[in-house]
Structures are given as structure tokens and as C-alpha cells.
């Protein structure tokens, strides 16, 4: 990213922080000063506030892009217990406490807590206001909450959780689009996925509040256990899920590192594939599948003798066949890993062409159009192959790679995928490959002469990715 862009982003952040901070403060002051809200029982408030803060800090990643935190349940249970006359002030002040997370403190991040403050206070105020309205419309003032009926309580808290999710999600969208531009935002596409568990949790939160009002303090340990047991179960699931992915990533990285021509290839292909997937609007599940397919697409190559991978001249017909066999190594190796089967199918088709030519995986015949995901993987894989130095050819330029992808669009590649990729790549402002223009033949000649001494790795800007090997110093010593 350029210096000017960084400065622009910084200015946007400052403006956003000021806006959100002001919004949060105004709402907080308002709910504290309005005369018809009284502060709830301090002991209960402290108890629920502590629980709310704890769970707000410890949200669990259920699947890609879906973080669930039971804190909304706690907020609504507390709001029901406090009753409409204290719910808004009690709930909103609880939420205001959870703004600074330990991670922000460790990172010395000031932006996140201020924005969180505005966001949490506004969402909590919206949710508790909705609940208070539902609990008090058409009811004589001072009626105990329980007497309004359990149906009203349950539906009111479900509605309140919708309000919470809407305000929260809108604000996140607003922030992300302002600070990070278009990348990474797919408005509303995941809304249903987020809403359903949210409504369920709101509904349950209200009922648990009603349970406390009905059976008294003995309900507190039970409610605590409900939260803790559920949280621990999800947390250990999420941890194991993360372990699974980091294991295969680490493994592949270690194996690839043994060869300087393949080093980092998988990580980069996974990154490019995800970029295309986001650009084309794939949903969370599809993106996850695509990422896994990219991670495993070259596992088979690890079993191919190094002489072939390192060969400096063009491969002979037989050698090329042997190389293509790695597609079947993937299938053979991963056939017993149940959850990877859809990904194996994508990965084993990444050498299949859009028009049905090319090399297909098992179960697909010559002439079959590969799946959208396989097409994405093919483009990502080819782009990285062209822009990094291989044993038989030094790296080519990014424009050359674009031209090459476009030249084969419609035959080897899916034209839609190629355009989505180029657009996403241009938006990201990154550049890969050599800076020196060469033709494919020149690049191959250089490689054949030998380039052991001239590998340099200074091309890729993303610090999380291993730079592609680029033979830069060939012409200028």
C-alpha cells in the first residue's frame, strides 16, 4: 500500500473513532439521565456485567466468518430480570464495560476499543429499548414482568436480538467499507447465517431471565452452567478445528520448504484462490472448501521425485505424464479423510481445462467442464506458476501473466474467473513476478543456463506470504 493510502486510512480511522466515540457517549449519557429509567439491583448488575464482559472477550469462531458470542443471551436475560424500568440503563451500561479487550491492550490499539464502544453501546441500547417497548406496550405500569406472559417475554427478546444483530452488523459493515475499501465485504450475503443462531440465543436469553424470575436465585448456578458448558464445548471444537488447519498448513510449508522452487507456492495459491472467491461472491462454506482445496492441491507433488521438479529443460512426454500423476497421488493419499472429499475433487481437477480438455481427476472424463472452484484453483495456480521462478524458467511479469490468462480464457480457463481475478488483484494493489520484461523463451533460456546464484526474493509485499522466487538480477548483474 502506498504512503498516501496509509495516511488516508489513518485519517479515516481518526474520523471514525471520533464519530463512534461521540455516538456512544451521547447514548450512554442519555440512558443514564432519562428519568423513567432506574438503576437495577447493583449485585445482579455486577454479576451479569461480569459475565457479559467475559463472553464478549471470548467469542468463538464457529466457522469461517461466523463468530458467535453468547453475550447477547446474557444481555437479554439480564434485561428481562431488570424489567422494562431498568433494562435500558442496566443493559447499556453493562455493554459499555466490555469495550477494551485484552488483545487491544496487548497491541496498544486505540482505534478498536473506541469503535467498539460506540458499536456495543448503540446495539445494546437498541436491543434493550425494543425489549422494554414489547414488555410495556398495553401493560399497566408497574406490572411484574412475569405477569406479561412468557410468550411476550420470549418473542420480545427474539426481536431484541434481531435489533442487536442488525445495528451491530450495519455498523461493522460501515466501518469495514470505510477503512478497508470494498475488499472483504459482502453486504447481507451472510445475514441469514448470522441471524438464525442470534434469534435462537435471544429467545433463550429471555426465557432464562424468566426462569430466574420464577424460581429465584437457585436458577443462577443453572444459568451459569448452561453458559459455561455450552461455551466450553464450542471453544474446544473451535480450537480443534483451528489445529486441524494449522497442522496441514505447517506440514505442507515444511515439505515445500525443502525445495526452493515450490517454497510458499501453496500459501500463495490459497491466498489468490480466496481473493477470487471473495470477488465472485462465494459464501463462507464455499470459501472454506476452496481454501482447503488450494491447501491440498499440490500435496501429491511432494511424492514426485525432485529431479523432475527441478529439471531445467522442458519435460519429455513421459516425464510430463509422471508429473500429472500427482493429481492421483492426492486422491490416493486423502481418500480416507472424509471431510476432505469435496476438496479432493476440486484439487484433483485443477489441471482440467474449462473446455473439457486437460488432465482430469478420477471420476471425471475428458470433455467434462470442471467445477467453478476447480476453475478458480486453476487460475490461481497458473498465475503463481508464471510469476515465480521455476527450475525450467525464471519468473515473468504480472502483465505477461494477465495476458497469458486472458489468451487462454474460454479454452483453458473460465473467462469469468480470469476477469474476477485480474480485477481483484488490481484492487488489492499488489504486484507479483519479475519487473523485467521477457518472453517465455528468453525466460526458459536463462533457466537452462543455470540460475543457482541469481535467486532473489524481494518481490511480494504481503508479509504473511513467503515471497515467490524471482530471478531479478539476471540482466543487471
Amino acid at each position, binding site marked *: 500500500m502506498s504512503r498516501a493510502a496509509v495516511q488516508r486510512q489513518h485519517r479515516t480511522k481518526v474520523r471514525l473513532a471520533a464519530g463512534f466515540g461521540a455516538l456512544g457517549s451521547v447514548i450512554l449519557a442519555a440512558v443514564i439521565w432519562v428519568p423513567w429509567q432506574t438503576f437495577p439491583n447493583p449485585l445482579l448488575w455486577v454479576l451479569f456485567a461480569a459475565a457479559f464482559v467475559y463472553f464478549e472477550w471470548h467469542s468463538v469462531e464457529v466457522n469461517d466468518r461466523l463468530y458467535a458470542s453468547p453475550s447477547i443471551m446474557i444481555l437479554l436475560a439480564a434485561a428481562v430480570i431488570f424489567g422494562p424500568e431498568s433494562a435500558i440503563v442496566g443493559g447499556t451500561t453493562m455493554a459499555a464495560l466490555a469495550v477494551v479487550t485484552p488483545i487491544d491492550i496487548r497491541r496498544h490499539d486505540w482505534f478498536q476499543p473506541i469503535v467498539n464502544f460506540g458499536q456495543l453501546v448503540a446495539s445494546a441500547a437498541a436491543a434493550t429499548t425494543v425489549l422494554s417497548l414489547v414488555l410495556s406496550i398495553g401493560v399497566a405500569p408497574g406490572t411484574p414482568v412475569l405477569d406479561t406472559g*412468557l410468550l411476550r417475554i*420470549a418473542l420480545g427478546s427474539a426481536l431484541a436480538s434481531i435489533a442487536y444483530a442488525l445495528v451491530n452488523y450495519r455498523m461493522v459493515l460501515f466501518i469495514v467499507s470505510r477503512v478497508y475499501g470494498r475488499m472483504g465485504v459482502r453486504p447481507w450475503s451472510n445475514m441469514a447465517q448470522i441471524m438464525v443462531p442470534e434469534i*435462537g440465543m435471544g*429467545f*433463550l436469553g429471555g*426465557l*432464562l431471565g*424468566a*426462569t430466574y424470575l*420464577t*424460581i*429465584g*436465585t*437457585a*436458577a443462577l*448456578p*443453572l444459568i451459569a*452452567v*448452561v453458559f459455561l*458448558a*455450552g461455551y*466450553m*464445548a*464450542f471453544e*474446544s*471444537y473451535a480450537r*480443534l*478445528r483451528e*489445529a*486441524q488447519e*494449522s*497442522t*496441514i*498448513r*505447517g*506440514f505442507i*510449508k*515444511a*515439505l515445500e520448504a*525443502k525445495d526452493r522452487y515450490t517454497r510458499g507456492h501453496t500459501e500463495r495459491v490459497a491466498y489468490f484462490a480466496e481473493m477470487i472467491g471473495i470477488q465472485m461472491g462465494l459464501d463462507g462454506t464455499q470459501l472454506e472448501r476452496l481454501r482447503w482445496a488450494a491447501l491440498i492441491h499440490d*500435496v501429491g507433488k*511432494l*511424492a*514426485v*521425485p*525432485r*529431479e523432475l521438479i527441478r529439471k531445467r529443460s522442458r519435460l519429455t512426454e513421459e516425464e510430463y505424464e509422471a508429473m500429472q500423476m500427482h493429481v492421483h*497421488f492426492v486422491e*490416493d*493419499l*486423502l481418500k*480416507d*479423510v*472424509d*471431510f*476432505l472429499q469435496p476438496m479432493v475433487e476440486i484439487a484433483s481437477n485443477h489441471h482440467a481445462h474449462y473446455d473439457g480438455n486437460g488432465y482430469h481427476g478420477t471420476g471425471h472424463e475428458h470433455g467434462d467442464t470442471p467445477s467453478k472452484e476447480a476453475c478458480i484453483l486453476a487460475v490461481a495456480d497458473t498465475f503463481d506458476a508464471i510469476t515465480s521462478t521455476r527450475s525450467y524458467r525464471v519468473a515473468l511479469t504480472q502483465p505477461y501473466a494477465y495476458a497469458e490468462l486472458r489468451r487462454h480464457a474460454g479454452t483453458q480457463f473460465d473467462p469469468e474467473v480470469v476477469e474476477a481475478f485480474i480485477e481483484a488483484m488490481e484492487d488489492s494493489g499488489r504486484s507479483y513476478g519479475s519487473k523485467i520484461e521477457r518472453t517465455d523463451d528468453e525466460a526458459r533460456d536463462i533457466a537452462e543456463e543455470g540460475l543457482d546464484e541469481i535467486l532473489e526474493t524481494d518481490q511480494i509485499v504481503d508479509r504473511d506470504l513467503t515471497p515467490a522466487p524471482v530471478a531479478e538480477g539476471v540482466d543487471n548483474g
Partner: protein
Amino acid sequence: MAESRLHRLSLILLGVITVLGAVAFALIVRSGDEWVAVLLWAAAIAGMHHLSVPTPSGRRINLAIGPAVAAVILLPGTAAVMAAYSAGLVGGWVVLRRRSGDDRDSDYVAESISMLIFGLVASLMLTGLSGSSLPLAWVQLLSIAAGGVVWFVLRALVSAWVGIEREDLASRYLWLRSLEDWTVALSIFTAGALFGMTWPLMGIWAFPIAILPYAFGHLAFVRYHSTRVTYGQMIRALAQIPEVADLAPRGHSTRTADLAVSIAREIGLHPDDVIELEYAALMHDVGLITLTEPAILQAGYTDEDVALWGAQIIAEAPHLQEVSEYVRMQHSPFRRPGEATDPDVPMISKIIKVASAYDQAVYEMHLSPLEGLERIHRGSAYDFDPEVSASLRRVLVQRGVIAA
């Protein structure tokens, strides 16, 4: 104990429960208590035998204890509770017959004994405390909690005992494995208690209040379990890269891992360590993948090199740091002549060393199992830990590979 003896035990237990149920029913019919409610709860307990939830230890708990917990609160008196439990357990036995699986007898014995004792403890405590000044809800909660602790410990003990008899596993291993189930047990108990406490006051709303939180937890337990399975499958697959590349004999890593896990359970390693051991044993030869490099083949290499390369590859996975260490240490000798044993060599590495050597002797040198064991025994004291080779012998006897 053999399957048939276990089956006999479950039949005897069924007989005892039937008699107990008959007595309890006679008591409640005489005192005119609500026998319709008793039958309804019995049906719920019997039906719930059909559903079970996977636990972190890799086994399952069936959900029958959930309605049993609610029934203690809602049924009047110990006799009614015992009547409902006995009838429910007799019905549960029939339900379990329809389920396949070799562990239904052992599960039934453990679950039914602990359920009956839970009912006794909780309902007696409920009656005893009802005269006290404590609010009713707290009396109910305390009784369930006390009964639940007894249930949990008893269930772990009985299944450890049944398991030793059934699979000849170490009691320590089984006991620790059962203790891992506490989060699941807590979720089921909470659902039962919530239902029992809210039903009289809130009516049908007790259903969502009890079931919804449990459903969230259930979903997580199921997903955790399936992820655990696929994680294991993935490691198995990665471990086979050298075999697919024809750099290692086919099947060696899988067989070594199976044997190593049997030895570890026999010795009584902690269940968490058994999982680490399984991963380490599967991947103990993964370093062989480095041999696709022609330069290394020319230069030559030792077993220690392979172990070190393997450990370096595994160490790239942040969650497998310990596994990497076990793989690195797998060739360390148990004791060098004239020196004391090296306490730094982990038990897991010693087990892998024995299992891998035995597998090589039998499948690559084509020795008989007895000759293979003989080789290990000869190497004991210096190469191999005598404790591990003794355990190997017991495992081979159990598997029926060599005579006792």
C-alpha cells in the same frame, strides 16, 4: 471379562431391576400415588436410551439420565422414582438390543447401576432436606448436584471395572478417560434439572428452557467429535506421503501406531498422551520424504537423521510441538552401557521404538511373532525399556498372536 460373561452380567442386572421395579410398583399402587406419571417418566427414560451424545473421550453417554434427573424432582417419593427408573431401564434394555455395537452390554451395566444409585441418593436427600429452612428450588438443586457427583464417580468406576474385564485395559487409563466426560454430563444434568424445576411453574415452556441450551451443547459435542475423527484421518493421510512415494514400506506407520496405542493403553498412559502417541507413531517415519532429494541419497543418512527431519517437518504445525519432540527422541536408547537410564526420553518415544522395531522384524525381516518378540527382549535393558517390552508381550498374548 469375555463378552458372554458381560452379557450374563447384564441379564442378571436386568432381573434385579425387574424385581426392584415390581416391589416399587406394589408400594406406589398401595399408597395410591400417581402411577400414570410414573409410567410416563419410565417411557421417557426408556426412549432416551435410543439417543446418545459423543463425549471428548471418544465414547458416548446415552441421554436417559436427562429425564431421570427431571423425574427425581417431579415424582413424589423414593418409591415412585425407583419404580419409574426400573421400568425405564427394563424398556431401555429392549431399546439397546436394537442398537448395534459391541459395547452395549458394558454401557448398560455402567449406566443402569449409576442411574439407580443417583435416584436413591437424590430422592432421599430431597425428602430429608424438605423439612429444612432452605427454599425448595435450592433443596432440589443441591439434591441433584449431590446425586450427580455420586452418579459421575460411580459411572467412571463401573465402566473402568467393566472395561478392564472386557478389553484388558489399564484401570488408570479407563478411569481417566471417563473423567473427561464431565462437560457432557454437566450439560445433560442441567437440562434435566431445568426441566424438573420449571415444569410445575412454567408449564410447556419448560421444554424450550431445558432443551434449547442442551441442543446448542449437543451440536458442539457432535462437531467436536467429528472434527477429532477427521483430524486423526488427516494425520494418518499425511503420514502416508513417504509410503505413497515408495520411500517407506506400505502399512508400516499404521501398524506401528495401532500396536503402540495398544501398548500405551495396557501400560495405563493418560488418554491425552495416548492420542499424542498415536499421532507421533503414525508420523514417526515422515522424515523419509526428504529422500526424494538425490543429494541426500548420495551423502547417506542414519535413522537419527530421519527422526530429526521428521521432527522438523512436524514442528511446523503449531499444535504438534510435543509430537515433534517424541518423534525426534524415538531412537534414543533406553540406557547406554554403564550409565543410568536417561529420564529425558519420554515413555511415548520408548513405546514407538519398540512398536516400530517389532513391526519391522515381523513384516520386513519376516520373522515369526515369537522371534520378533525375542528380538525385542534381547534388546531390552539397553535399546528397549523392559517395561515396554513386557507390555508388548502381554498385548501380543491378548491379541492371540502368541501363546500365553
